[in-house]
């Protein structure tokens, strides 16, 4: 007889299971959600997030990039093109002998491995946490030097 009642209990639990599920899902309508409204609120990214590249400058406004093409050589996806130009005393872009005349990264090819950052001798190229990279054409996803370069701190100073 006890076997019968244990069977009854099992059947009752199986019959009630859908209703329990409904109750458990149904109460969620009054629970606060953990959803963040994305464009207004951005979750802070991890310290080591590797997304879009930037080209850094020194504090005096000089570009860090010296046009050595080591990043292009290290790139496993052949996404980087560097064309170096000679610095002159009248027009000095970087502290070294040469600077990057053209610097392009094909973001469609880039696999965000960070080898360019590792190989850079001056710390010029860096992968930052800028992650909104969607565009509507392939051309727009070839990032040029102007797009990658951080703004000149000297120009932004007010004093």
């Amino acid at each position: 007889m006890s076997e019968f009642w244990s069977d009854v209990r099992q059947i009752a639990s199986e019959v009630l299971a859908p209703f329990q599920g409904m109750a458990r899902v149904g109460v969620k309508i009054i629970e606060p959600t953990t959803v963040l409204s994305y464009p207004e609120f951005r979750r802070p990214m991890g310290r080591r997030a590797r997304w879009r590249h930037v080209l850094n400058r020194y504090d005096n406004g000089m570009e860090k990039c010296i046009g050595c093409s080591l990043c292009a050589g290290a790139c496993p996806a052949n996404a980087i093109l560097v064309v170096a130009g000679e610095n002159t005393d009248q027009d000095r872009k970087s502290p070294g002998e040469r600077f990057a005349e053209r610097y392009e990264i094909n973001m469609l090819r880039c696999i965000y491995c960070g080898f360019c950052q590792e190989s850079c001798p001056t710390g010029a190229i860096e992968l930052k946490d800028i992650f909104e990279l969607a565009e509507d054409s392939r051309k727009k996803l070839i990032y040029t030097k102007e797009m990658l370069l951080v703004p000149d701190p000297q120009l932004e100073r007010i004093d």
Partner: protein
Amino acid sequence: MSELINSPVWRDLFVNSADNIPWYAEFVRSLLRFVIALAGGLGSVPILVWLERRLLGFWQGRLGPNRVGPFGLLQPMADALKLMMKEDITPTNVDKALYYLAPAIALVPVICSLTVLPWNSSSDWGAVAPHLNVGILFLLAVASIEVYGVILAGWSSNNKYSLLGGLRASSQVISYELGMGLSIIAVLLMTGTLAMQELVHSQTIAANVPIPDSNYSVWTQSVSAGFWNWNIFKLFPFGLVAAIVYMISMIAETNRAPFDLPEAETELVAGFHTEYTSFKFAMFFMGEYANMMIVSAICVTLFLGGYTAPWGILGQLPASWTFFPTSVLNFVNHVVIAPAWLFIKLYTLISFFILVRASQPRLRYDMLMHFGWKVLLPTALANVVLVATSMALQQLFGAVGHFIAVGIAACLATIVLWVAYLHWKARKSGDEASRLPIRRESVVRAIAARMPVED
């Protein structure tokens, strides 16, 4: 203004009884009623889509669409616009005629079944066809045409997944239509009428009150009407059983979760409408949601008192408000409050079905067939017989007759449940004790029989 209202044309169009009006007045009235039904029926599809996405979102711990317009209310408009603007692709090897016909066949019967749905008690304005005295039959006949759209779409797409979806849809709808029809027959036995408006009237204590200053009358609820007169509580528990059977087979009829096997995304890549794009897909989509709304409205009309209030007082403005003229009171009672109750009940029911979709997993196909043929159909059939028994016994013995019928039902249920329990237990013990060894042995023997003999 008063000249216009008292003019004979105006009285023909809007005031006089439908029995003695000229043909053009009847034509205009029919058109108007149809426009009202279309606005209510197809106009509630976007609301339904919004409600479903929003509620599903909340129940899944999300927010749902909340960007376009206030509370995301314009999201369905944006979706519809997106569907219209998309490229209309016709695959090369489809059966052209059927491929183009299928979305129309899926949508048109749904719109047709709007015609018999009553939204208030007026015998002239209460539905598109308020005088159709075979409303339920018409509805059953038209509603079953809808599955042809699904089958033809699956067949003409020339795609094996679409075909499987269409086949599943056809067998599922045929199986569950039986249970649905039988549960409706139980209601028809209780109420003794096929006309939709009379079905609603039978669920309330109604009086036929003539409207002053015109020669037609409206059915008015009395104050003692209420939810205890609804068919779901009539001949308890038979009305309740019929309602539950109807609701389950209604979910299956509209191909919604947990019975959404014809469009199982994970198995059939959306089933019968895989090959449809743009407006043709929009027609399927619209038909599906309108159908969902209409079967829910039928459920409300059959079992939950239609447009009547759950308590008579809530269904009308107090008659003591004499500072309003009688015509204004009548207008508010019948044109605002009655449809409002219909909509409240409808959306409560639909929210429940969305909750079912949010929480229940999809059935396996053999479980679906097993449930339809071996559980729902016998239950509905027994229910019809018991309703008839109860009514016959009530004629013989008065109210005691119903309790005799309930006793018979209880005995039957006990026997059936006991047999089902024994069956379940045998299967359970068989599973635990003998399944694996027997299988392994037979497999070994089968393999050994096929092995080449080495010497």
